[in-house]
């Protein structure tokens, strides 16, 4: 309860900060809407020339893209503070985080959510719901499983960000790891099936981008078998467990050298 209260406090501070600079908020919001809008326009254009891509229809491809954006945007919204972690470690400011009676990992993950992405999330979810209702018609079971898969994807996203924090403590650098993660996720704007092996297997089971972004959409479309659904959940739990182990290990390596 205390943790939730503090997270809400962080969120409130961050929201006030975002609202204090409205022109910046609108510029970024506008740019991101344009970015998504143009990719969707490209998919529409593409399907004017072809009837399907690897067996997927226009609406299915659109669903993959929207689900990718939902998960990606929630990740960016929640874990923005990870992008600011390096200066905290380099300056020794992380000492202050460690001495407070509050979990340093929660502080480092949820210390500054980015509310610019919230408006965007509302738009993407609305479009996704419209497309799903109009063209996909998922069953209630598919919808529930889809929501569970989204939560599972967020577990893997959390695990990855914890890994980044741990690496940050050990190497004093997180920027590139985060950016490579962002570029790897950007590959998933299209379903993982579009990649040929060994790239496809690598992106599914080694760097679990396929599990995170493609599998939830496939569940919604009713084309993912139960074995892969189970593997996905297993992956989510194990990755979070291992990342927490790594975080504890990295904390023991922290030397507070800059303070």
């Amino acid at each position: 309860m205390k943790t939730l209260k503090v997270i809400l406090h962080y969120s409130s501070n961050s929201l006030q900060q975002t609202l204090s600079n409205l022109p910046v908020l609108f510029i970024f919001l506008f740019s991101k809407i344009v970015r998504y809008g143009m990719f969707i326009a490209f998919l529409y254009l593409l399907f004017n020339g072809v009837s399907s891509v690897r067996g997927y229809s226009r609406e299915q491809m659109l669903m993959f893209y929207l689900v990718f954006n939902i998960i990606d945007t929630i990740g960016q919204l929640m874990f923005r503070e990870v992008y600011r972690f390096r200066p905290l470690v380099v300056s020794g400011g992380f000492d202050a985080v460690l001495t407070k009676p509050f979990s340093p990992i929660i502080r480092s993950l949820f210390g500054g959510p980015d509310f610019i992405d919230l408006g965007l999330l509302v738009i993407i979810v609305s479009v996704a719901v419209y497309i799903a209702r109009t063209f996909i018609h998922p069953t209630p079971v598919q919808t529930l499983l889809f929501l569970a898969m989204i939560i599972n994807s967020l577990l893997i996203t959390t695990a990855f960000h914890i890994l980044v924090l741990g690496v940050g403590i050990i190497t004093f650098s997180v920027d590139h790891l985060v950016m490579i993660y962002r570029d790897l996720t950007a590959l998933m704007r299209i379903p993982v099936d579009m990649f040929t092996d060994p790239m496809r297997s690598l992106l599914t089971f080694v760097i679990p981008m396929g599990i995170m972004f493609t599998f939830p959409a496939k569940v919604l479309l009713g084309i993912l078998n139960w074995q892969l659904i189970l593997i996905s959940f297993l992956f989510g739990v194990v990755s979070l467990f291992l990342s927490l182990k790594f975080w504890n290990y990295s904390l023991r390596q922290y030397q507070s050298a800059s303070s």
Partner: protein
Amino acid sequence: MKKYLTVFGISFQNEFVYRLNFILWRFRNVLRTLMTFFLWNSVFSSNSNVFGYSKEQMLAYVFLVLIVSSFVMAAPSNDNVGGEISDGTLNNFLIKPIGYLRYWLTRDWASKLLNMLFAVFEFTLLWLIFRPQIFLSHSPIQLSLGIILIIISSLIFFIITKLAISTAFWVPENTWGLMFTILVFMEILAGSIFPLDLLPKSIITLLQFTPFPYMIYYPIAILVGRIDAQLAVRIIFQSLALLAVSYWVAMKVWKKGLKNYAAVGI
């Protein structure tokens, strides 16, 4: 001129100091190309001809994007100029006998050279893995025109992005906003995901009045011979006009910005 050559030399060496940074940056560029490559590869798995492009032509286009964008869009100035204005570091340059924008243009060109070298290496590596057939025009005139346009486009890119960053003179706490918007438009409208002649004709006609298609699409279309020499010359003149106009506007804005500049970050 000599001092800029020195800046070029030092900047080139400087890129080797942060080797890991550079390699990871290049790795990220390859990742971006892979998405486009596999998307089009999938599209052509069940279609032999899409929008008048064969699979070979389209994959060649995707591969050439890697090379052209490495040259045109490699610009460390974009990550630094805004910060130097907002934190007052610009002062260091204003009191030195060196043109600030020319200094950064030189540094950008050093970075472009290194990026190009790596892009050629990555291109070869990807070619060895995927073996796409690369079409290039056989006409030396056509190839020369393509290269000339790439050089002009890189100058337009430099000026347009500095124009966007110059908002930092008035809003020092926001050095990235307008720049982000331009890069978002460039993502699709420059032609890095698909060749722009897939778009309806009216949109391409409209786009030629913007800098976007000159960055990637036109240079590649000329290099692969999709645009003939006569049209290529016209496009080069258009790009020169665009360069002149954007240069004029940028200089006006930059001068006004310098008048407004108060080194508040110091």
